[in-house]
């Protein structure tokens, strides 16, 4: 099978972490946050991690929406910490959103990109990041004040600290191997129910 060539600038080591352990290890206390999860893998695993908590708004479509939903939410709720978890494909679809978000610089927003380098839901085609595009460098170039890459368990403690303590607008690239996300099969992603339960829990 013909394959696309990796970029000659691709220098990151091969991913070694399994997302099924790495995502819960990075986000220790999901109840501390208002959360938005991008479609497919991250929506399923965040749903499992939070036991379908209403403080999670999970997307089943609208690819590319998660980071900007996070921005609108973070600006509206400056006293709450907002966490966006999304995949590399979802983030790449609206990568300009990183520039828009950095200009606003909301200190209560953290974006975690669970980067498996592939489009896991559509036949596991390699994504741009799998071929060497660096989302962490893009985030830095956009002006994110805090950027951290988790390649191995050795990088995890600093990632955990950043998620826990929140020292300003943060981008964390969590690099994981190909493979399934945790999926407990119960999540109800009926769109208007997602909205209603999130708002009811937050706003009463």
């Amino acid at each position, binding site marked *: 099978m013909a394959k696309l060539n990796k970029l000659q600038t691709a220098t990151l080591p091969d991913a070694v972490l399994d997302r099924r352990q790495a995502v819960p290890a990075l986000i220790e206390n999901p109840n501390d946050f208002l959360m938005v999860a991008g479609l497919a893998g991250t929506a399923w695993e965040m749903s499992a991690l939070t036991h379908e908590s209403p403080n999670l708004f999970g997307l089943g479509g609208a690819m590319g*929406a998660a980071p900007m*939903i996070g921005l*609108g939410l973070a600006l509206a709720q400056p006293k709450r910490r907002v966490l966006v978890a999304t995949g590399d494909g979802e983030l790449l679809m609206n990568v300009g959103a990183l520039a828009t978000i950095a200009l606003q610089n909301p200190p209560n927003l953290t974006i975690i990109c669970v980067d498996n380098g592939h489009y896991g839901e559509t036949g596991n085609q390699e994504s741009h990041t799998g071929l060497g595009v660096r989302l962490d460098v893009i985030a830095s170039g956009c002006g994110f004040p805090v950027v951290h890459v988790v390649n191995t368990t050795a990088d995890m403690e600093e990632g955990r600290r950043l998620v826990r303590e929140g020292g300003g607008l943060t981008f964390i690239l969590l690099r994981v191997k190909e493979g399934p996300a945790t999926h407990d099969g119960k999540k109800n992603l009926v769109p208007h129910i997602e909205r209603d339960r999130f708002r009811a829990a937050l706003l009463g």
Partner: protein
Amino acid sequence: MAEAITRETWPAALYDLLRQNGVTQFCYVPDAGHKVLIDRSLADTDVHSVPLTTEEEGVAMLAGADLGGQRAVLLMQSSGVGNTINMLSLTAGCHFPMLTLVSMRGEFGEGNPWQFPMGQAVEPTLKAMGVIVLRAEQPEDVIPCVTAAITMAYQSCQQVAVLLTQRLIGAKKF
């Protein structure tokens, strides 16, 4: 009694209307037709003025603002409508309130042929995605149209676009 709205005064009255109705997030891709709204939002310390790289970002941001209990408005040119289409699935499916003000090109008196395909497609594409379209043709239409749209969007959770038509804002001269 309020002074009559004119071609010169409607943009400022429109900004005041949005603020009086609790809009605190203004997101936009710049356009001459929205210059006053953009400048006013930048000068207003009580609102977030958010320049976008593409209009679909704004659709998602409106959703996030609603989840957090704030009101947002998306300002864009007619060409930007084409960039929002799939993202309107989010708004329609979740019943997010959406208010967008669209400054029109590619219609009444347009002198740039590149503007026509998307300008003429604005209404059918928005309607195909379930967005209600109101048109402001004259200065005196603006406040009633946007007042109606505010109620339809934020109270009835509809998706509403008010077209600030080229007849209203004037065709750009080249």
